[in-house]
């Protein structure tokens, strides 16, 4: 390797490429893209002059690739700086003659080169789509890859920025995936409330929508909307490109400015306790917090599982005051949504609002659950706590129960917080009572299912960062793939195929029960519950077995 070559690039890039996981990822992607194209490749000798068939293939391929970029790219930059900081090698790098700029670009180039490999692996598939005809090289394939490259750049710079702020690799992974998910999906929601772009709120909502790549990609794929009415007007290609470029440059600039010795400057928490403060301060904090996080805790009572209490206490946002805030936020959002339907702020019926509420809850579940669950075991093993747990007389069953309860309680509280919204919905349309009940059962199953999958997948890995990344990818795939297939309903996927794929998780059933536009024709109950129940039971068994195995002497 030439001495002019940035040594950080060399280490970062080869470090990623040499890992068996990266190799397996590339191989899996190449095989997946090939299979996807082959599955949709015309089997008869008829030439489709209109290009409809090739666009159908291109959609499957394109959304798959987009999902691949969203799932895979953030994992590496999200841990890039925090890993080095915790291992002490960042201090060595900063002490070397390398400037912060070359350290940053070395790391960024390493990540970008790997992402480029991912995109290269997809080129044979893209070439096959193009060869089928009907896809424009410049405004179709070319623009799509340009959008992907922009996304890769944005996600890499964003991941590295977050990585420079967090204190642990799993926090980096969690936060990066959450922000990317928000950028990708949540940015579409305000525009759904104020469609058409009229008024200040409408304009703001439309600009927020430009932050997401979904409208641009959908336009490239020749699809005007998300399957529901009034969502898409203008995809805003230029705005999206400008925002992505500017935000990436800002992310990069802020990260570079943080690459100095100040990154290590962090004072230790002083452990201030409310009990030692004056009466006024104590009363004020009681009023402001309801449950004061700085008050001295009483001992764990005998009737509570100590592992569950420990899990709540050692989560930054697991403390009561944060749970209250989260529950309150969910209650407010669900009430606002239902209020919007009741006062005809939008032209939507209660079915659409109900569908939106279901989707919002599922997003919350999908974002929160892997973050809460994936590190249940790997977090302990990472921090050395597992050894200590093994030394206690706690049985593996009690450990499993405590850990799962800590997640289930949090998610059930969030779900219960949305009940007022559903109650208002029933009040408006009393005949929806039965449907709402079925939806709530579906959502409860969604919680159980997501917790089971996250716990089982997360327990298979030793380090929290890897466990969190893989869990996010698996959980998001389980929820996004059925929606992608549903988007391709009619063509390229037939009714039977879509109905079968929607059974993968209970969300499709919830949306179909509440008669969300596009889901009404599918009959998914009770099969979706059986599938969710069976799969959850299997995943809980895997998790339980793994915990039992890890508590045994080896």
């Amino acid at each position: 390797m030439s001495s002019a070559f940035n040594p950080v690039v060399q280490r970062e890039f080869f470090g990623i490429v040499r890992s068996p996981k990266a190799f397996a990822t590339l191989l899996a992607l190449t095989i997946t893209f090939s299979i996807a194209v082959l599955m949709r490749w015309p089997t008869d000798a008829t030439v489709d002059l209109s290009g409809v068939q090739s666009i159908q293939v291109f959609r499957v391929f394109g959304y798959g690739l987009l999902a691949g970029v969203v799932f895979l790219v953030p994992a590496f930059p999200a841990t890039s700086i925090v890993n080095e900081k915790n291992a002490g090698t960042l201090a060595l790098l900063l002490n070397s003659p390398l400037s912060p700029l070359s350290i940053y670009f070395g790391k960024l180039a390493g990540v970008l080169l790997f992402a480029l490999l991912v995109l290269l692996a997809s080129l044979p598939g893209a070439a096959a789509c193009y060869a089928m005809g009907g896809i424009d090289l410049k405004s179709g394939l070319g623009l799509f890859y340009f959008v992907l490259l922009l996304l890769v750049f944005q996600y890499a710079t964003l991941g590295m920025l977050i990585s420079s702020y967090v204190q642990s690799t799993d926090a980096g992974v969690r936060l990066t995936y959450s922000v990317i998910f928000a950028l990708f999906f949540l940015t579409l929601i305000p525009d759904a409330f104020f469609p058409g772009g009229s008024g200040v709120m409408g304009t703001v909502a439309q600009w927020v929508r430009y932050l997401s790549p979904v409208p641009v990609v959908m336009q490239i794929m020749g699809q005007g909307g998300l399957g529901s009415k009034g969502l898409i007007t203008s995809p805003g290609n230029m705005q999206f490109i400008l925002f992505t470029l500017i935000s990436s440059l800002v992310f990069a600039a802020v990260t570079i400015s943080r690459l100095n010795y100040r990154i290590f400057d962090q004072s230790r928490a002083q452990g201030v306790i409310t009990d030692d403060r004056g009466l006024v301060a104590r009363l004020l904090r009681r009023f402001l917090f309801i449950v004061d996080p700085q008050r001295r805790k009483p001992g764990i009572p005998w009737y509570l599982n100590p592992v569950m209490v420990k899990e709540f206490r050692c989560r930054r946002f697991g403390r009561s005051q944060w749970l209250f805030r989260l529950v309150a936020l969910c209650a407010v959002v669900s009430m606002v949504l239902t209020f919007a339907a009741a006062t005809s702020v939008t032209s939507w019926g209660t079915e659409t609002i109900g569908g939106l509420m279901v989707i919002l809850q599922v997003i919350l579940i999908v974002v929160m659950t892997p973050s809460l669950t994936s590190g249940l075991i790997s977090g302990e093993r990472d921090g050395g706590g597992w050894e200590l747990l093994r030394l206690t007389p706690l049985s593996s069953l009690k450990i499993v129960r405590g850990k799962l309860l800590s997640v289930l309680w949090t998610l059930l509280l969030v779900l219960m917080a949305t009940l007022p919204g559903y109650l208002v919905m029933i009040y408006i349309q009393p005949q929806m009572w039965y449907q709402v009940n079925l939806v709530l059962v579906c959502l409860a199953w969604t919680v159980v299912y997501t917790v089971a999958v996250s716990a089982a997948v997360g327990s298979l890995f030793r380090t929290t960062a890897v466990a969190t990344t893989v869990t996010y990818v698996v959980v998001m795939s389980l929820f996004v793939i059925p929606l992608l297939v549903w988007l391709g309903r009619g063509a390229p996927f037939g009714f039977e195929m879509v109905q079968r794929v929607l059974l993968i998780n209970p969300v499709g059933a919830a949306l179909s029960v509440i008669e969300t536009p596009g889901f009404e024709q599918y009959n998914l109950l009770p099969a979706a519950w059986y599938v969710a129940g069976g799969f959850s039971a299997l995943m809980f068994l895997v998790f339980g077995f793994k915990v039992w195995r890890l508590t045994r002497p080896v």
Partner: protein
Amino acid sequence: MTDQQPIIETVDLTKRYDEFTALDSLSITVHSGQILGFIGPNGAGKTTTIRILVGLLKPTSGTARIAGADCLTESRKIKRLVGYMPDDFGKYNNMRVGEYLDFFGAAYGIGRRKRIVRIDEVLEIAGATYMKDLFVDALSRGMQQRVAIARTLMHDPQVMILDEPANGLDPQARIDMRTMLLRLAEMGKTLIVTSHILPELARVCDIVAMITKGRLRAFGTLDEIMRDIQQRRTFEIQLVDHDQVDRVVALVETWSREMNHESEVTGATTETMVRFTTGLNDREITPLLTHLVGSGEAIAQFREVPTDLEDAFLSVASGSHGGDPPQTQPATQEATS
């Protein structure tokens, strides 16, 4: 103070990973109230032994018992009998020290009222009362070690196993740690302590076990080990003038040859000193001084260099380089390897 009943007993304890033997037929006995110093280079098998004793590892063969309970089959009993402090602290983020100890107390099934009292007690023993409201993840290494001791004491175990308790501590913290260990022994606890800081161990341990490459090389009190391992002694002859050094080196070498004893003799002109290592005892070495003085050499001092645990350890460890060390008999009858 010890009684006759052994509290820790391992018999032919062996742990193999495929072809690699991490622990080879280790047999030791420790009596109640004793402090055992467990010494060995990195990868010698100390942690393997400890992990078998606390029930985290399954031995390939052999048995280990603590207070009569089998470490493998009676793990629930062992968990109550033993308090283990691993080298890794095992921190939980966002938890205060009080909450941390409360969790472990609850995990050991200690009732809430008793637990609250116990937390204050163990923090006091560990000299960590002021840390009760601090966050566990914000503690320095020395503070973590104290909290770890407090955690280990929460369920009032009979036996405490401390892996590298002095690791990373500053000199004052080491002194405090030593005092704490002696205090624990006074409380009637049996302790197994591993450390690389041998002078620290030498000051607190009743008995020492030296292990290299998974095999027990020496076991017994410090004096017994010195006697067994340090077969050769080093003497220093302090001279008056620099020009004496070469003459005295020649005299010592000649005298040793005449006595039919191998001696390694070195002269240090700058120090005006001659050092020699020999296997002779006090009675046999005395004529050398007479011989030197009789030869007209002015001798300022003639002294034996005191050996310590470090020397003993180095002797054992160096013996293990490039093959098995010379077989040494265990110092006590209980210890066989």
